[in-house]
């Protein structure tokens, strides 16, 4: 017989209710803060101007063109789709952007380019976007350049 419990053997139970409460709270938190559009915006070291004078990006549908550095290569992607180097890749990118903006002319096109890239590697993409607008027959296309708001902290 237990010394603590005169009426029988001692039974140690763990109270699971607060543990489950906490786990559910954490799950709800992560569901709310997780962005499932990770492929649209891969981690890129965006430019960080000293005294940024830009507008915060609103959460709205957008077409994102990413220019990333992988080793000594520049990789261009539209969402999760990557484009081959060279003229054929640039034509495909132009076509892909034109198809999307023809369906939704108000869709802004965001350019997310690594800050260490040379302008020679970025400019053809800007050119492709301008050509896509022409192909889609749009007089005006909203093109935006992405940068980080605060200087001094590296992304990711």
């Amino acid at each position, binding site marked *: 017989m237990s010394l603590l419990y005169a009426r029988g053997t001692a039974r140690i139970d763990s109270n699971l209710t607060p543990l489950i409460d906490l786990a559910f709270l954490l799950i709800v938190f992560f569901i709310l803060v997780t962005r499932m559009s990770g492929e649209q915006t891969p981690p890129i070291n965006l430019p960080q101007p000293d005294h940024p004078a830009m507008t915060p990006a609103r959460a709205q549908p957008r077409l994102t063109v990413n220019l990333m550095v992988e080793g000594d290569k520049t990789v261009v992607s539209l969402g999760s789709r990557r484009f081959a180097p060279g003229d054929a890749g640039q034509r495909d990118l132009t076509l892909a952007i034109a198809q999307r903006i023809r369906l939704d002319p108000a869709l802004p096109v965001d350019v997310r380019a690594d800050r260490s890239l040379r302008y*020679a590697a970025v400019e*053809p993409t800007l050119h492709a976007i301008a050509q896509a607008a022409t192909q889609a027959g749009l007089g005006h296309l909203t093109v935006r350049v*992405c940068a980080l708001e*605060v200087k001094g902290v590296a992304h990711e």
Partner: protein
Amino acid sequence: MNRLRAANGFRLQLAMTPMIDVVFLLLVFFVCTVRFERGEAVYQLDLPARGASADPLALQDAPLQVILRAGADEQCTIELKGDGIAQSVGDFDALAMAMEKLRRRPGAADGLFESAHPILIVPTAATQWQHAVEGFNAAVRAGFQNIGFAPSADAKFQT
């Protein structure tokens, strides 16, 4: 007698173990996949109409050019060039101030250009994108609204 207890003594219980397993699996999944992104912001860009869409009959103001040349040690030399203007500036803060002086503002007599005057950022092929965006940022800080990047003759797709 307890209603949940059957006559033969079996007790009806809710199996908590699989639920807790699933909850923890979900928790681990979200902990592993969550990505806290830094705040991104955007600059509205006015890409110059290139080639076919440019109206050959349209009268356009000569743009004020911000020429950014890649220098030694990842530095950048900055030059402001326009109608009767040729000025070198030391850094992007000085560029923003110089451009603000050139902008026509209420109560200031020395402004030459309206806010809507076209500004062309002209980086060379070797200029870093960081510097190109800083030049763009300086023009935005100075209060100009019609800013674009110049085409580069020696640029190549994904080089």
